């Protein structure tokens, strides 16, 4: 069932890109869910700190959703290259839900924006949360389906008669869904709140008492997240993990992450928010590798080896990708520097002159990319004639 064209590069770099970009994606997605949930809770409270935190959390949720969606594009691409049989079997057998995924995300995002702009329509926020959770559930099914290749035909054609409506969910595992979504949402929320308190620690217009409140909520979120992740992770290990012969690795990873963040929550502070972010990034990477390991192991049982995926070295496409990365990454860094600098003071602030020069370089890099793009096209045109 593999695509006869093969991959355009050795499968290992694709697999690495898949895991790394998944980590970026899941961080923002879970941060969005966690922020929205705490924002909605905050809206229901009357205390000033909670009201203020609700505003912050809803804004965080809005930006995190946009970034989560954008970051999700990359793993979606790479999974189709090396796991095409598993992915396409899932997307067709659950075709209706596959198609509804984007409308659910789009509507959820739109409602979230309305909540952000209007500030106090909690009902809209709850609808948004439900839609985003539905999208998460769909993605969980699409991903988990691939772990059971021996059941694909039976799921597609129960009793030998194909069901081509694509309405039934298959392959789900509730503890896994709960650990990776709710457990990680609380952990991501904790990290984001710490980063918020760290960023605004020098702003005179932001009360220190509020920042202390945010910090304490961050610690609570980390504690809650670690407990959820540990408990649900253990059930995940003994359910899906055991089915796939991977109970022990799942148990070790989930308990290690849970214990690390439970202990870390006691001493986490806004001053050390960046190291907490680093630690969390590492934890997400380990969980991402675990997910990948489960998929590899499940498919290898059926004789499917990712590293044996046929490939050609398609240098043209690799060249275009690398050239684009070289042009785009400095620009992304520049934009991050601008937004960072502008928020340091209440009335806004310009980035340092060196950053401005970096911005000019970014523009030149983008123009350079277009020159490269057209030159490459003319070269291909000349070669074809």
């Amino acid at each position, binding site marked *: 069932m593999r695509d006869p064209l093969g991959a355009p590069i050795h499968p290992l770099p694709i697999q690495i890109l898949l895991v790394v970009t998944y980590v970026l994606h899941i961080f923002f997605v879970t941060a969005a869910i966690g922020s929205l949930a705490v924002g909605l809770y905050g809206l229901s409270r009357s205390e000033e700190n909670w009201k203020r935190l609700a505003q912050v959390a809803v804004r965080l949720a809005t930006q995190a959703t946009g970034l989560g969606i954008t970051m999700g594009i990359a793993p979606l691409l790479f999974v189709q290259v090396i796991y*095409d049989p598993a992915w396409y079997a899932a997307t067709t057998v659950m075709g209706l839900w596959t198609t509804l995924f*984007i409308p659910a995300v789009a509507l959820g995002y739109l409602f979230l924006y309305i909540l952000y702009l209007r500030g106090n329509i909690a009902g809209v926020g709850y609808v948004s949360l439900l839609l985003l959770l539905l999208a998460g559930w769909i993605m969980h099914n699409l991903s988990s389906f691939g772990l059971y290749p021996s059941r694909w*035909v039976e799921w597609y054609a129960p009793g030998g008669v194909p069901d081509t409506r694509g309405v039934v969910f298959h392959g789900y595992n509730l503890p896994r869904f709960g650990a990776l979504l709710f457990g990680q949402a609380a952990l991501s929320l904790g990290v984001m709140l710490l980063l918020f308190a760290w960023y605004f620690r020098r702003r005179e217009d932001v009360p220190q008492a509020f920042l202390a409140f945010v910090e304490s909520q961050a610690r609570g979120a980390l504690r809650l997240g670690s407990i959820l992740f540990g408990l649900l992770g253990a059930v995940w290990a003994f359910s899906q993990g055991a089915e796939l012969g991977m109970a022990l690795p799942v148990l070790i990873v989930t308990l290690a992450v849970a214990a690390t963040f439970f202990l870390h929550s006691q001493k986490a502070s806004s001053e050390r928010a960046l190291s907490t972010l680093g630690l969390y990034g590492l934890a997400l990477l380990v969980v991402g590798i675990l997910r990948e390991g489960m998929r590899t192991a499940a498919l290898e049982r059926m004789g499917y080896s990712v590293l044996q995926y046929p490939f050609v070295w398609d240098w043209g*496409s690799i060249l275009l990708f690398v050239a684009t990365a070289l042009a*785009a990454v400095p*620009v992304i860094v520049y934009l991050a520097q601008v937004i960072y600098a*502008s928020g340091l003071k209440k009335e806004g602030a310009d980035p340092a002159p060196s950053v401005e020069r970096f*911005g000019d370089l970014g523009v030149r890099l983008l123009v350079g990319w277009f020159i490269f793009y057209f030159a490459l096209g003319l070269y*291909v045109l000349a070669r074809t004639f």
Partner: protein
Amino acid sequence: MYPVWEGYLIHSAIVVAIIAVAHVLFSHVTVAATWFNWWVERKALLENKPYLQDYLKASALRLLMLAYTLGAMFGVGIWFSVTASNPRGISTLIHNFVFYWAAEWFWFIIDVFGIAVYYYTFGRVTPKTHARIGLILALAASGTLAIIVGILGFKLTPGAWLQTGLSLDGFYNPSFWPMLFARFALMFALTALYALLVAGSLPKDHPARQEVIPLAGKVGLVGLLLGSALVVFWYVPSLHEHAKTLLRIPQAIQPVFYIKMAAGVIASGLVLITAILSPKRVSAPLGYLALALAFLGLFGAERTREVLRKPDVIYGYMGSNQIIYAEKAPRGIKAEAPRLNEEGVLQRLPFAVAPGAKGAGPTSGLDPVEAGRVLVTLQCSSCHTVSKNTAFLGGLRPLPPLLKRRGMTDAPAIRAYLEAIGGFPYMHPPVGTSEEKEYMAMYLEKPIKEFFPELRTEGGAK
């Protein structure tokens, strides 16, 4: 071959078309809007017209909320809907162009992150820095167009890729250059309509409204005229003979497609002329109406482009039914149709499942009608409604009425008709053994009787 998702109530291909056109509308508006806004921002700076910032803020907020994120999201939505409806087609694109899409992903990040930075830094950084962010947005948004044009064009005109299998040959394909420039021009017309909508929502006496509306009218009209000319005089002539033939066959490109395109172009043109000659008459509702009509025109244009490669999903390589027909395919790939004709679809394909189908002949307990359903679903459902699952509002080119209209209402007549299908330029002949084609005919008789109960009493009379 993967399992088949026919759609649910609505045919899967219609779902893809709706999402795709929504994406085109949002994304085209976005790309040109970034250039238009950059120009307006420069104007505000150089001519000292700070009131233009009000237009820019209103435009940026809508772009942030709707165009950027929804544009990007519907783009991903096309993937999702196509992975459900035509997985092998999208797989071919992914395996050729994964790094091109990954490159586009970088532009998406700049777009989505950048528009947020752009919006939130109004008045918080110097005007020069803000204008630079606007320029970065315009360049990155154009980068997304620059990449997707190559992939879109590949499906219709894969060009030298069919011989070399090199992705660069498929990307810079014969329709690449005309489509790149035509789309770039036409998107200014869409952006102008969007600008009218935004400016029209400002207070009537706002100076930005009076200044932006005629400017948008001029920019949009130039884009519309130039883009239309590029389509007619460069893009269409760049197509292969097969596509040009289909353009002349009403069964392939229905006249309603041309009507939609013409309506979109004429309505957009009239609104843009009104913006130049009588800007006070332009209001936000008129902008919405014009965008709706432009959507109609886009729908006609995009559907026409999609149909021009029929019967293939990737012209000259893979049929819409996801079977590889190319006899000399790149990278040593072999045509699948001959093998399926020889060995049988039910024996060869893992998801061609029917009770008893893997055994030999009727003695295995095979239900020929059920086997026929599986074969018809596999081969016909990507372009046709083949069952009541997707018959909502008549479905997509539904087979039962189509066959009835041609007098093919019983299995023997349908069987003969199946053999004749290879004679149409927009369809491949069905694949499978002779028995399997019998099964297909036996199944097709069934939905005809379901759709037209009166035929049951006539015993299948024509």
